[in-house]
């Protein structure tokens, strides 16, 4: 797979000011057009790694290459979906979704048009004029997703995007996300705590060890998606095996 | 036509009936081309401050200590009125000066004329106070006296009258030897006095004429106030106090006919040295007073 790796993480390490070593010697290749998951115990450096890839944090060692260029900061080919949504509380849904385009200097007309399109695609039609506080957690999450989609980046970096919605809504989202990616053909890097979520969504699962985080295992669940309904996937033997395998590894990390 | 002169006058008190002579003189000076613009400040300190900083031309009061310390050449040049204060005690507790030995008294502020008077009296009667507390404002002390918060203090004429009227049988006024020091004097920078000689002269002439008229007939104040329409919104209660106040003041020689001059200066130096406001021996009149403007004015009103 190295040939079509859109993101390459080479020997990345990160120590925070306080002396905390969050990551050590992480090597990773993330294939184009696929969904990769970072999974690991709390505090193992998942968010840190994702932000390093995003160019929001500088690593203290190693480097990240995206599309053959070394990462020095955020870039237009990467878009971040924040765990806490990071919506402007004083702006309505339309402006929030269009915010990435606003920063790029697009004219109002143009960016509103694009934003409306993506608001429709994430199923928020009719809520353009609502403010974040008027939306449920799940709807806010979708605003964040639409904002990231609107800038049409090739790579979506998602930090536990479904962690603040309830289990049932989460399942719904997972299905929506898979459907959306079917159409959009993006590369997605996804951080999660949930073994089921990782196994269900991913083409590639990167298991990180506890702090300092290193890659302890890479799993490629070869689950048959074409045609099978989500409910069938959840009973798929491959799927259950992957879940089990991961749980056996992670179990050791839990106190 | 004559050019008009403006004088900014800083008063360290609210304008009330005691300031009537000043107000009358200011009106009359106006007729002669000198505009005296009176601003009332919270306290004598702030008024003095205004003169030092050049925001006012003439100040009123007796800031001898400030004069001695500040580098700027500021001089007194006219005595507006002499001290007239009344030591007053609660009859239940004290009957004479002797009874105040070892007792607590209240005066205006530290280093003020009121404190000096009480200290001089103590010296004269060979007594010693236990404690001197400072309660600024005759009116405040009068109220405190009526309420029983203080038992011995010193008041100005109008407040003494108020107290005696309110509860005549409760209080006693203690006798006081003659004190001739200034209660209110005028001061300004030498620079101003030299530059605005004509204006100052006219103002002083009018002040002197007013004092003389009052001394001749206290009732004149009332007539003049009516004629000029001064202090129009004075409450009726206070209006009734005007005549007694001026009668008493005239009887006690409060308003000098000659602006005090050299003798006032000497009295002041002696009095304020005793009171502790002025430091040092051999104080010279010319270091504190500038007598030329007064002389020029007196020459005209002879």
């Amino acid at each position, binding site marked *: 797979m190295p040939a079509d790796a859109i993101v390459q993480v080479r020997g990345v390490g990160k120590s925070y000011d306080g002396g905390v070593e969050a990551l050590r010697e992480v090597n990773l290749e993330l294939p184009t057009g696929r969904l990769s998951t970072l999974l690991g115990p709390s505090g193992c450096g998942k968010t840190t790694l994702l932000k390093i890839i995003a*160019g929001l944090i500088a690593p203290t060692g190693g480097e990240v290459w995206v599309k053959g260029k070394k990462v020095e900061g955020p870039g237009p080919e990467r878009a971040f979906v924040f765990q806490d949504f990071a919506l402007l509380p004083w702006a309505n849904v339309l402006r929030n979704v269009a915010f990435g385009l606003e*920063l790029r200097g697009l004219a109002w007309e143009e960016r509103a048009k694009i934003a409306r399109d993506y608001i429709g695609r994430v199923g928020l039609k009719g809520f353009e004029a609502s403010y974040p506080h008027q939306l449920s957690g799940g709807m806010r999450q979708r605003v964040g997703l639409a904002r990231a989609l609107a800038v049409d980046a090739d790579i979506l970096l998602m930090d536990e995007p479904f962690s603040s919605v309830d289990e049932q809504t989460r399942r719904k989202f997972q299905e929506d996300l898979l459907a959306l990616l079917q159409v959009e053909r993006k590369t997605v890097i996804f951080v999660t705590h949930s073994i089921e979520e990782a196994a269900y969504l991913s083409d590639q699962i990167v298991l990180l060890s506890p702090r300092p985080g290193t890659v302890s295992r890479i799993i490629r669940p070869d689950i048959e998606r074409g045609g099978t309904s989500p409910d069938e996937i959840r009973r798929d033997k491959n799927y259950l095996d992957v879940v089990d395998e991961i749980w056996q590894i992670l179990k050791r990390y839990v106190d | 036509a004559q050019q008009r002169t403006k004088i900014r006058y800083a008063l360290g008190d609210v304008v009330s009936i005691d300031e009537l002579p000043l107000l009358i003189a200011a009106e009359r000076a106006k007729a002669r081309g000198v505009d005296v613009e009176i601003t009332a400040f919270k306290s004598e300190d702030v008024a003095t401050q205004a003169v030092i900083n050049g925001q006012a031309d003439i100040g009123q009061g007796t800031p001898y200590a400030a004069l001695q310390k500040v580098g700027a050449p500021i001089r007194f040049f006219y005595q507006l009125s002499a001290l007239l204060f009344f030591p007053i005690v609660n009859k239940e507790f004290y009957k004479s000066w002797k009874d105040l030995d070892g007792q607590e008294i209240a005066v205006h502020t530290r280093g003020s004329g009121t404190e000096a008077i009480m200290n001089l009296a103590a010296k004269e009667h060979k007594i010693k106070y236990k404690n001197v507390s400072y309660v600024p404002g005759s009116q405040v002390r009068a*109220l405190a006296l009526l309420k029983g918060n203080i038992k011995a203090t010193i008041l100005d004429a109008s407040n003494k009258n108020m107290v005696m009227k309110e509860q005549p049988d409760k209080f006693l006024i203690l006798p006081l030897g003659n004190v001739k020091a200034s209660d209110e004097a005028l001061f300004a920078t030498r620079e101003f006095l030299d530059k605005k000689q004509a204006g100052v002269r006219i103002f002083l002439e009018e002040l002197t004429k007013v004092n003389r008229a009052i001394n001749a007939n206290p009732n004149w104040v009332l007539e003049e106030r009516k004629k000029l329409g001064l202090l129009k919104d004075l409450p009726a209660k206070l209006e009734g106090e005007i005549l007694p106040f001026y009668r008493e003041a005239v009887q006690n020689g409060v308003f000098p006919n000659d602006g005090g001059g050299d003798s006032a200066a000497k009295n002041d130096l002696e009095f304020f040295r005793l009171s502790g406001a002025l430091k040092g021996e051999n104080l010279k009149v010319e270091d504190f007073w500038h007598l030329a403007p007064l002389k020029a004015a007196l020459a005209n009103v002879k």
Partner: protein
Amino acid sequence: MNRKEPILKRSLVWQLISFALFFGLWELAGRWPVSLAFPSFSKTFLALVRITADGSLPKAYLVTLQPLLIGIALCGIAGIGFGIGMGLSRAIEWASLPLFIILQAAPMAAIIPLITYIYGIGLTAKVLAVVFLAAPVVVMNSYKGIRNTNPSLIQMCRSFLGTRRQEVIKIILPHAGALIFAGLRLGLAMGFIGVVIAELLITPTGIGDLITYHSSVADYPEMFATIVSIIVIAALAIHGLERLEQKIFPPEIRGS
């Protein structure tokens, strides 16, 4: 949270009861009487009507409000500007934060008598009294507003390639709006104190003149009425601003 609502709703009746109780006690104390110079509520109220009707109170307010408004406007421009500067620039922050922390805790009212010694006795001195009292809280609130911007929003802005300029204009300033406004409100509260003390301690003009004058001629009801009026007006103004603040910046859109 939920408890606030019913209180505000039932408040009209209870406010009336609360104030009736207070005024009743005052009336009693005045009639007893506590002191010769302590007027009852009814007398004070009549005096208030009197001085309002004869125009002396409104005229006094015109004079008093001048330094207050100028001072607050100055704080609004320079104070907020400086606070924002402190929030955005480490150098300014480090050079001035310790001083402002001290100033905010200090009884700045004590400085008012000093002002005359530097700025004299005119309007400037009173404006300065307002500024000295109001500035620390205005500056500190603006600073905190800037500093407390949700870091996640800033990262979001950077991740979408926002420039530093865009970050300040589109994220930091709107985010700090509520705290800055609150700072201005608290500044106004301090400014009221400043202007009243200045008028009592420096030159009695406006309200201060009314108070001093009525006190000197022993019109105690008028004097009380004047003071009560400024307390009530200030309290209502501040309270009104607080409500306005909650309207413009409801907690929901403030972000965390």
